[in-house]
């Protein structure tokens, strides 16, 4: 069956529509929660904070709820959703596998190990951000180990080597996490809760950590999108079409891993977003990464924002976000997989 690429105009409309939808969703969702705030009020408060609207006298609780509690959490979930989807786009392209995800190289296990260590030893030398930063450092060390192991043959970091190295390192780290849980006595509940993921009481600093990697990461991926397209045809094809494969693979892999590491560090392990979103969006806009990356980012952001809103406001008790995405994403993934098998 022929595939008709969506043309430039439809693509522009899709992109613009998603941006508007995301902005609208942020406003709507900010009004939702234990304390209901009318949308007009939310818009007015944001307008005032941005200096667009002149200040009026309001209930002093409102700014605290909106700016200190809800918006940091909401914006963090938006950025993490977008970041994970973006990272998934890169991993699927480089590993030549439409079903790879940001955690394929074991970043999530590394982050979890770092966080578990921090929780076990009650590390507090970085204040409230100790766990987040330990998770981030854990993810980075994992990346270095995986690259070192996968590159031992001196070749061009083949996708098989990378996946295998990721699986090996992740398995060792999982055993390490189990050991920490075993040793952790009363701390074990905190560790398990962290691993299941949550956006509860996230701050502007959390958002900043993710944004610092996710936004430049988007720029880098758009800059190298042509190379990424060629790399997704295989290393030999990419090389013969002029791509310095080892260098570009390294740059994109490190960038995507940094984005994923920042996401995991602030949110815990949120599965299926990085796997499903790029896959689904590719079905609509086609495999060209220059088009794929921005749309995947927006859809991922919208999806995780919705999931977090469900658990924050609609469910009687807050279910960990990682559990929720896996519960929804898992069966959906089964469905996609089955469709693939049927052709």
């Amino acid at each position, binding site marked *: 069956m022929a595939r*008709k690429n969506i043309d430039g105009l439809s693509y522009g409309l899709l992109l613009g529509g998603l941006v508007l939808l995301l902005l609208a969703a942020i406003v709507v969702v900010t009004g939702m929660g234990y304390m209901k705030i009318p949308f007009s009020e939310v818009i007015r408060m944001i307008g005032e904070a941005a200096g667009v609207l002149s200040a009026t006298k309001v209930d002093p609780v409102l700014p605290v709820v909106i700016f200190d509690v809800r918006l940091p959490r909401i914006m963090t979930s938006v950025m993490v959703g977008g970041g994970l989807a973006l990272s998934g786009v890169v991993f699927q392209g480089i590993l030549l596998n439409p079903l790879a995800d940001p955690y394929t190289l074991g970043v999530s296990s590394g982050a979890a190990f770092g966080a578990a260590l921090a929780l076990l030893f009650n590390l507090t030398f970085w204040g409230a951000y100790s766990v987040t930063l330990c998770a981030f450092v854990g993810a980075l060390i994992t990346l270095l180990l995986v690259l070192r192991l996968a590159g031992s043959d001196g070749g061009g970091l083949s996708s098989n080597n990378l996946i295998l190295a990721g699986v090996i390192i992740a398995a060792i780290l999982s055993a390490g996490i189990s050991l920490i849980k075993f040793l952790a006595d009363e701390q074990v509940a905190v560790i398990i809760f962290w691993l299941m993921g949550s956006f509860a009481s996230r701050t502007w600093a959390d958002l900043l950590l993710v944004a610092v990697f996710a936004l430049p990461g988007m720029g880098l991926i758009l800059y190298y999108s042509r190379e990424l397209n060629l790399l997704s045809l295989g290393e030999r094809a990419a090389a013969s079409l002029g791509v*310095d494969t080892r260098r570009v693979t390294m740059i994109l892999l490190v960038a995507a891993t940094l984005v994923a590491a920042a996401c995991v560090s602030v949110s815990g392990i949120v599965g299926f977003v990085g796997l499903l979103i790029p896959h689904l969006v590719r079905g609509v806009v086609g495999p060209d990464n220059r088009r794929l990356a921005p749309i995947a980012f927006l859809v991922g952001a919208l999806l995780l924002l919705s999931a977090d809103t469900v658990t924050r406001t609609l469910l009687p008790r807050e279910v960990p976000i990682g559990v929720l995405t896996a519960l929804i994403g898992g069966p959906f993934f089964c469905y996609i997989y089955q469709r693939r098998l049927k052709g």
Partner: protein
Amino acid sequence: MSLLSCKNLTFTYRRKRVIEALDIDLEAGFFYAILGPNGCGKTTLIDLLAGHLSPDSGSVSLQGRELSRFSRRELARKIALVPQFYNINFPYTAAEIVMMGRYPHLSRFAAIDAGEKERVKAVMQATDIVSLGPRPVTELSGGERQRVVFARALVQDTPILFLDEATANLDINHTLKLLGLVKRNVKEKKQTVVAVFQDLNLAAACCDRFILLHQGRVVVQGELDKVLHPEPIAKVFGVEAKVYEDPCFGRKQIIFKHP
């Protein structure tokens, strides 16, 4: 001066000598065949000559300049490759894949102008894949996909073209059509083509010069009569061969018998 040459080329993979002390000179405007049994180093030789692998010792030079001193992009404007394996996991359309052959000539964010589109269309017509254009390559048959990748290499418009068993999955019509196209480029544009063949008769029908490899070394190289001769064929492939002039088309053909 030769266009592409290698001196004392040696390559080892996992402690096994794959290519040993090879000297080859390729001149512009000829159609070369690389022949030899499975595992004799044909694909490795192509990868070394195209700069995808770097030799352990010895050197490859293109127009007198060491290959390692070219950037990948510069090389992609000089050398195109139709590989033996060409699995594509993502649903790019055939037309998109062919267009990628122009990337080495276009700057990163350049819009694709009408001239470029025209050039791609002409090659797609010549290779008989216009009807495949809007279809995802993941849904094409092996032979169709091979024609798409072949077209991509032609669109790259390079002075040197490597074919690594590039017609292995094609029907006889498309095999002859594509090789005929390549042969015309050799004659008219002075393109240099280096092709790995399993089918000695197909090589005999297309090529001007022949390089026979065995265990990583050149056994014999030169013109047809010298290389496609019962003696080296027996030595390399271990089969009896007889070379005769085919009475219908007046070409040298070889028949084989397993001893």
